[in-house]
């Protein structure tokens, strides 16, 4: 795994991966249901199909966030040192960023789960 994903990806960009996935998941879920209901697509595909598709998309998003969390954990040295990592060294900057990315991944994971919970209970389009 260590060699499979090179350490070069550990830039500031990894920090944004999980929140970006969260944002994308949020937009896709809301837009998909809104378009499905506004355009009256219920005659072509059932709401169950849409629910299933968004469920699969949710699992993909969660997997992506877990991967991002793993990379962050690795960048953090698998928890070998404790925060706050505030020394003015290259090593500490790396650990700090890894730890921040890990926390953001956790937040994004929970947010994606929360955004998906209504999918289980929405019964149909109203109007």
């Amino acid at each position, binding site marked *: 795994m260590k060699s499979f994903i090179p350490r070069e990806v550990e830039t500031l960009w990894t920090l944004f991966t999980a929140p970006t996935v969260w944002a994308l998941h949020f937009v896709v879920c809301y837009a998909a249901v809104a378009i499905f209901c506004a355009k009256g697509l219920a005659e072509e595909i059932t709401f169950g199909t849409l629910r299933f598709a968004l469920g699969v998309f949710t699992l993909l998003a969660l997997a992506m966030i877990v991967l991002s969390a793993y990379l962050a954990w690795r960048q953090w040295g698998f928890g070998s040192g404790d925060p706050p990592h505030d020394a003015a060294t290259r090593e500490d900057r790396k650990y700090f960023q890894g730890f921040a990315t890990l926390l953001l991944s956790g937040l994004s994971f929970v947010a994606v789960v929360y955004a998906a*919970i209504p999918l*289980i*209970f929405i*019964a149909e389009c*109203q109007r």
Partner: protein
Amino acid sequence: MNDDRLAASGRPIRSGPSLGRHGVCRRHHLLLFVFPPLASCSGAQSALDPAGPEAAGVATLFYTMLIGGIVIWCGVVGLLFYAARKRRAHSTKSAGQLVLWGGAVFPTVVLAALLTYAVWLMPVMRPWFQDDASGMRRIEVTGEQFWWRVRYLGEDSGPVFETANEVRIPVGERVVFLLKSPDVIHSFWIPVLGGKMDMIPGRENRLTLVAEKPGTYRGVCAEFCGPSHALMAFTVHAMEPRAYEAWLSARKNSSGADAEGLALFLRHGCAACHAISGTEARGTIGPDLTAFGERGSVGAGSLANTAEHIARFIRYPDGVKPEVRMPHFSMLPDADVERIAAYLKGLR
């Protein structure tokens, strides 16, 4: 009893419980000092005193959240006392564990459970019925500035008759409210029966409600709509089905008698905006005044319905409801205003 007191003071009615279940507030005066929140739990405008399944769902959700909130608050305050009295410091590791489990995992799980519970409860709080399959009684309510135009629709969707600031529904029968607005956004809310629904210009929103207990309730505008937003209320009468049918047929045939009062009403131009069924008054700009004497209030919940208040409203509507659309009629002779007020109060 309450209305008499209000009539004497002449102040606008601003709190809900004054209309409707008289005496409810008075009984709770002692409680008010003992435990303030309890005193506001019952009444004509309390979501915690539900008379329909939707409002019962809201109340259940509220109590669940309240009890959960109290438990968590006690826990947090307990921890605070513990932290303040504790002499020996904990290790950094155990403090970190507390932050992780108590500060991150616990709130996440609790919030997930609450979110799931609230979303699960939604079909109860806002049930949905198909347009065509329903065949339910329909009432169209339009939010005006600052009153409610209420039209009872017939089988063919055409209005059978119109009234204002008062909604009557039969007990035990689900009713569809078609909610509209010509200019600004209002929100239709009968707390005792269910949640609120916005009235948005250009749209027709649908809300279905059912009253399970007969009674007189109070509805309000729940979206800021202008200077008199707080003075935009209406009365809801949940009636036994037989009494409701009797009222419907009586209302279809009601007419304004009293030749002199009506003549003054017409001569001074009131009919340009107001209608009274069975007379030449057919204005549609302002509230329909048919059977006005039966209404619970003057000016959409602003004043108790007495002849004095009607006269006061006719003279200076703006003094009672800021920026109301009705012009003042203080130039009319006092005797004429009082005659018209008495005529309106006598309308059945």
